[in-house]
């Protein structure tokens, strides 16, 4: 049998080879291009971000109508809110003297400031809705049943954290909407039997919404609650893997 001589590499092949098969590239991405099943599995298994997934999953779970991507999108909103939030933090100072002026600055003079603020706001609303819908989808597919009991509980905690994240962010613009919404909200908390007034005082750092409340809400909003949420999300995702992926019929 005549063996065909390998075609001479073209210029494109050479450039491709230089770019993707060199020492530095290989040190970052250990697997080859994911065009074979082996590489496709390796790419998921060797990448820390993709490794949230298993390398293979049951075929019913890639149907969009099974999850509607709601959990994933909740997480995506969380990531988007982190990015836009960090950008806003460059311009925002959580003091009563500056907060409102900074908001005005962000929306008028800062390049893309208004856009960042809008994105942050609408993503926050979207996240609350998505998390709630995700809970509904989990409930209606009976996915809280054994062995996923505890992950449902983690989910309920995440739901509360999502509300709290949104609530603490609401005060930061320091406008009338913010001020009175938090006044109403903290009055609700203050009405709790026995511990209410103390809770309210602790929440606001005083008897009224004021400078102390602003710095408390800010700290919780930008670091305390996101950290907690990230921890619970890590547990949530880990448990999904440990519980054998998503629920499917027996």
């Amino acid at each position, binding site marked *: 049998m005549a063996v065909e001589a390998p075609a001479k590499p073209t210029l494109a092949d050479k450039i491709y080879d230089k770019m993707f098969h060199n020492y530095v590239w290989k040190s970052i991405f250990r697997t080859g291009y994911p065009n074979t099943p082996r590489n496709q599995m390796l790419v998921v298994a060797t990448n820390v971000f993709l490794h949230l997934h298993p390398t293979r999953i*049951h075929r019913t779970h890639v149907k969009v109508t099974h999850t509607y991507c709601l959990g994933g999108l909740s997480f995506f909103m969380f990531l988007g809110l982190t990015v836009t939030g960090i950008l806003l933090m460059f311009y925002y100072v959580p003091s009563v003297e500056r907060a409102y002026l900074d908001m005005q600055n962000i929306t008028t003079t800062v390049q893309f400031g208004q856009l960042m603020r809008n994105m942050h706001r609408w993503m926050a609303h979207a996240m609350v809705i998505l998390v709630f819908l995700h809970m509904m989808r989990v409930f209606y597919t009976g996915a809280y*049943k054994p062995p996923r009991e505890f992950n449902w509980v983690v989910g309920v905690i995440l739901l509360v954290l999502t509300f709290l994240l949104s609530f603490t962010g609401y005060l930061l613009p320091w*406008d009338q909407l913010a001020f009175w919404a938090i006044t*109403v909200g903290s009055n*609700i908390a203050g009405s709790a039997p*026995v511990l209410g007034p103390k809770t309210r005082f602790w929440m606001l750092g005083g008897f009224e919404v004021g400078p102390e409340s602003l710095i408390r809400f800010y700290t919780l909003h930008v670091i305390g609650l996101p950290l907690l949420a990230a921890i619970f999300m890590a547990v949530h995702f880990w448990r999904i893997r440990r519980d054998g992926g998503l629920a499917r019929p027996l």
Partner: protein
Amino acid sequence: MATTVVARPVARPQARARDEEVLVWPDLVFIEFIAAMLFTITLFFLSVVMNAPLLDQANADVTPNPSKAPWYLLNLQELLLHMNAAMAGIIIPTIWLVILGAFPYFDRDNEGQGVYFGTEGAVKITIIASAIGFFGTWLLILWDSGKIAFFLNDWFQLSGGDSLRFLENARSMQSQLPWPDWSREITYLPFNLRILDGTGSGGPTTFQHLDFPGWLVEQAIPIAFIVGLPSLLIYGMWRMGLVVTRRDALLALFGGFVASYGVLTLTGTAFRGQGQELVFPWELKVSEGIPGQE
């Protein structure tokens, strides 16, 4: 000494069905990417055409009317209009969250998981429970704001006269019934609860008094409705043979919850105008408030 280990059945992950599996890359990652892009693009355009609100600078002396919490708390603010504040704002949501978290410990059966409405009758239960939750909540809101009495009177000239006045709404049971004076001040607790709330320093033992009609209207009736109506719903559906398993009971409870939660949120958001009066969304106006005036 040997310790005795009591073996309890623990649910284990299902064995994987490897022949039924597909690769995450590209099958799942592709879908996730598309979903993420759709949301990014949609939210981007939304942000281009619609600005986040920024009103006047915060001013403790100017109260907007109505003052509202963020929309996802307006369900609680709506409840607040109908009952004792601690109950609406704290006790009910807390208890509900605990119940919600306890769902999997109540319904431990594996049947019907992994598919939508996987048990028999699930769709039917959901539809009925949601419809009852939806209309029931609306009716209760309308009743408690006196609208039902108003409509009966205004549209059908049906008036119960003064003797039926107390049925107009919950509050009128307190004001329109001939409660004897003693019932408005019943001594029930011979010590001072203030010790705990941190506002007082204890002080001498005092007596707690109960305003019975007030208690009836602000606590007893709402509790009776909030606990009683869902229980009645589940009991009724059980008697009808619709609700059989624990999953069925949860389906009824959850369906009713989602519907009434939705109605409460919507009412609080779009149907509450100045002074928290019930109005149509197009009549909704917010007054900026006048300095120095509540």
